[in-house]
């Protein structure tokens, strides 16, 4: 199936999601178009991960419909979903020893038949993804011997090698130093912009969201939500309401930055 280039890659119509007693979203509707980079913001425990899992078809939603490239997600098999939608989960466990290149190559799995082996092009993709994320020198290193940040970038490399049109990212900047946070967001931003993909990313760094995301979804709790272009929604007022603490917009004339103001002490 060719991607319907004009329509949304992922569309939600009046989707309600809950996990246990927590209502994550009520009647959530949004459409993620090619080239859009969505940020999902919300306080701890509001259900960002559950939302992403729902979008990946791994958590049942109450009602509404999710469409992946114009087809209802619920009717697609995992085998049909995987080449089109991938997700970077919050934690990655490596059960068995393999080197980084082999680990990244696992991302080609949904594109290969049972009997076929990874081609030279697949290997080149894995190398390229590792290099892009600054792991080029570690290609032959065991995935068991990586630091937290390296392991995080390896998981992202696997997703890039999987190369789906819809990238779901659960706090991709976890464990990363500032330079690497910027590196991976640049890489992701390029993929979204230049290759017509869409990314939906849960994260806590408001300023990175302001910088990289074209759109944001704010999960306010109790199923309430706001979705729209970043420029409209990412304001000090909305953020203060979202996180239930005082957040100020600081503008030095070159860039606007949100700052956690804290409670003034007497």
């Amino acid at each position, binding site marked *: 199936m060719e991607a319907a280039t004009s329509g949304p890659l992922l569309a939600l119509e009046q989707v309600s999601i809950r996990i246990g007693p927590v209502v994550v979203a009520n009647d959530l509707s949004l459409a993620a178009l090619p080239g859009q980079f969505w940020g999902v913001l919300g306080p701890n425990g509001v259900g960002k991960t559950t939302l992403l899992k729902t979008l*990946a078809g791994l958590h049942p939603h109450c009602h509404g419909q999710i469409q992946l490239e114009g087809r209802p997600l619920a009717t697609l098999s995992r085998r049909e979903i995987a080449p089109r939608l991938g997700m970077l989960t919050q934690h*990655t*466990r490596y*059960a068995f*020893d393999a080197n980084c290149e*082999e680990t990244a190559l696992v991302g080609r*799995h*949904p594109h*290969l038949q049972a009997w076929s082996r990874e081609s030279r092009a697949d290997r080149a993709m894995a190398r390229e993804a590792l290099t892009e994320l600054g792991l080029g020198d570690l290609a032959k290193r*065991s995935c068991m011997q990586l630091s937290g940040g390296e392991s995080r970038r390896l998981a992202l490399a696997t997703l890039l090698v999987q190369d789906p049109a819809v990238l779901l990212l659960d706090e991709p900047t976890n464990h990363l130093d500032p330079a690497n946070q910027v590196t991976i967001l640049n890489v992701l931003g390029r993929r979204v912009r230049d290759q017509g993909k869409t990314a939906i990313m849960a994260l806590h760094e408001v300023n990175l969201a302001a910088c990289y995301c074209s759109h944001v979804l704010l999960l306010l709790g109790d199923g309430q939500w706001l979705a729209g272009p970043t420029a409209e929604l990412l304001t000090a007022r909305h953020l203060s309401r979202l996180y239930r603490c005082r957040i100020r917009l600081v503008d030095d004339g070159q860039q606007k930055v949100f700052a956690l103001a804290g409670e003034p002490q007497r």
Partner: protein
Amino acid sequence: MSSRLVWTGLLVLVAISLLLACAWGSAGWVWPWTADEAMQRVVFELRLPRAIAALTTGSLLAVAGCLMQVLLRNPLADPYVLGISGGAAVFALLGMTLGLSFLPVPLLAFTGALLTMVAVFVLGRGSGPWSTTRVLLTGVVLAAGWGALISLILALGPDASLRSMLFWLMGDLSYAQLSAWWLLPLLLGLGALWLRARSLNVLAGGQMQAALLGESSRERFWEIYLIASLLTALAVSIAGAVGFVGLIVPHLMRLVVGADHRRLLPAAALFGGAFLVVADTLARSAFGARQLPVGVLTALIGVPLFLLLLHRAVRIR
């Protein structure tokens, strides 16, 4: 180590082990091609079928061990962890105790193994969300139950059959005679599994990761569980509960060829087979007329070999 060297080495190892098994026995040492007629009959009617049985059993157990370890995401898992050998043992021992000579022991063992397999399958699925832990616990508890029954049978059973029962429990190839045709289903099964090998690599990353990479993990889990259990059931009915092969060989081969199941499964099959052939040859030849259960030899050779490699390995943490 270059991979060509590894594969050549493994194939040579299998050939040498079969040659050794044919040449050496309690009746003495003879090269098969220089043997007189009587010895040729010993070689081709006794030693070779038994060697093939050992080769098949070793391969089955090693492959089943690889599958169980990835299935349960647990390096301690072996083909018997879910109680399959226990079920087989209870049925086999009951047959021996009650003198049900009209039912062959392998058939009884296979029935017991299948029964356990179905029980774990039905009980392990549960009603709530599916989990590997539930399957593991179901199997381990069933295994403990079978273990108690085995002790009971041993305690109450007639002394006359005690020795054969103990041999069966430790694994014994004395009565196992397989023609070379048995290798055919094994090879076909391995071929089919090899098509699933990349899925196994993906499953090793956990359920969620597997689902995201296009494996409907639940169906794949049960599919591989059934294959692993069937392989184990076959092995157990051929040779009784031969220990250590299914635990040690997968780990050894992971140290040699890595964790990619496309290399690991065939390597484990070859090495597991050769290992059991050598162990069985020693068990029946090294102590003259007195034969040992092969399970004792696999442990006696396997444990120090494994500990040595584990000690020297930098890749296991």
